[in-house]
């Protein structure tokens, strides 16, 4: 929640929406996986911090870019923003799933 507020007040609305959706998906899906609540909460907190830092860094890149290249850089940044979001969410999600305890595998070897 703190990260969402920070994103909204100090970054931009795209960051807030991204983090909100990230949290919604994470909480609703991860909650049902195996592993202790502490571990999941820690992973969620890390995700929010990483997301916040990531957006902060790129927000500064956008601000600097628009100062150097003009308003067109802002437009360019808006267009590539989804891909930039992808570069932190997908690896984080994948890494998080890989460190949870695994359920029993039901894929059987060929006889």
């Amino acid at each position, binding site marked *: 929640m703190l990260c969402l507020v920070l994103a909204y007040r100090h970054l931009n*609305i*795209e960051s807030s*929406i*991204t983090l909100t*959706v990230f949290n919604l*998906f994470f909480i*609703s*899906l991860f909650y*049902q*996986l195996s592993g202790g609540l502490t571990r999941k909460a820690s992973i969620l907190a890390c995700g929010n911090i990483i997301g916040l830092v990531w957006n902060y860094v790129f927000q500064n890149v956008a601000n600097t870019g628009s100062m150097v290249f003009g308003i*067109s850089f802002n*437009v360019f940044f*808006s*267009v590539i*923003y*989804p*891909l930039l*979001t*992808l*570069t932190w*969410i*997908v*690896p984080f*999600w*994948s*890494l998080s*799933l*890989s*460190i*949870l305890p*695994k*359920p*029993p*595998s*039901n*894929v*059987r*070897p*060929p*006889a």
Partner: protein
Amino acid sequence: MLTEVLNAFFLFSVVVITAYLIRHYIFTVTVLKSAQKSQPATTSPSDYTPSVTVLIPAHNEEHVIGALLQKMSELNYPKSKIEILAIDDASTDKTGAIADTYAKRYSQIKVLHRGRDIGGCGKPAALNQAIKQAMGEIIIVFDADYIPHPDVVRRLVSVFIDPTVGAVQGRPVVLNEPENIVTRLNSLERIGGYKIDEQARDLLRLIPQFGGTVGGFRKSIIQELGGFDEAMITEDTDLTFTIALSGYRIRYADDAECYEEAVASWSAYWRQRQRWAKGHMQVCLKYWHRVLRSKHLTFRQKVDGMLLLNVYFMPLLTLVSLGIGAYLIVTGSILSSSLWLVAPTSVYSFVGNYAPFFEIGVGAYLDGRRQIQWLAPLLIFSFILNTLICGKAFLSLIVDKALRRRSVWVKTEHTGTANSYIQKQTEPKTDAGI
């Protein structure tokens, strides 16, 4: 005027992309809840043993057909109630000879040789001819590169105890996953597609897709419907909707597993997915209005049916809408800048064959796979490739329609290298080679 049209299109795209995202989220949650409740397997070997014909269409499959026929001889299904019919479809290699060898060795194995005058023009035609001489009331189809579990036929057939079930789809698992990055990414896509997508559609009583292999249908239904449409290059998708629109149910059997040889090069991946995309688009054009008007489908089935039919158009729609959105932002004429905010959420669909990464990730998790999760970020590249594939498939389909010519069925080549992984598998598949 142009701005208004572009804004309307952008709004439409946002709604459709969001619909897919919600759909995949519902699928993922559904399967997770089901796994938590430890529900019994979708199917289990039972005493229900109707007569079965297993069809194995094979065109130039000398590298793989022997291994499959050997496994077929080891199925734990009553020998008196099963026939295995290998279809040598105008092969120019030793496929026919190898099949004949097994037919001489095992009485339940038979071979249908199709000459070059009528054969070699696609799987649907081969299946149609074989169905005419099939003895079983249930037809099960396997592609030649598959390695089945001994009880796969029992598990597939058990769903037909319900007379409303018209077809069943089992679960292909990539055997040569450790071969290279292509096979590993292929495996990830398969995990998402079957473990989550198909499973959820079965649990929610939607329309699981018959995939043309590791699956089956009632012989009476296929005869009633006139057989496979030989003009379609994805006859499996075509049959899916034919059966669903006839009022029969299609089931998915997650524990009816069968190992397959995945394509191991990007060029083979391109050719295979090109056929899937083009064929799927063909089926969409044929059935979309029938799905909407059907009296046999529920509202939910119609919605999911439409989303399933249009799935191969989605990568194109996503990129076009991003381009249009960018143009509208640049010109300052976007209807509502808040629509562009959906873009961050659309990114969730930017992986693989248009499946959200969380769906694939959860599928791999439920399979007990950990290290393969690390490859999920690489699916963005296969998504880009799939977008190009869908674009080319769309153009190719338009050209075929304009020239009124039949689409060509392109065979996937199999090398038999996956068979070497059978000996390496001595325990349940984990993250071998990753």
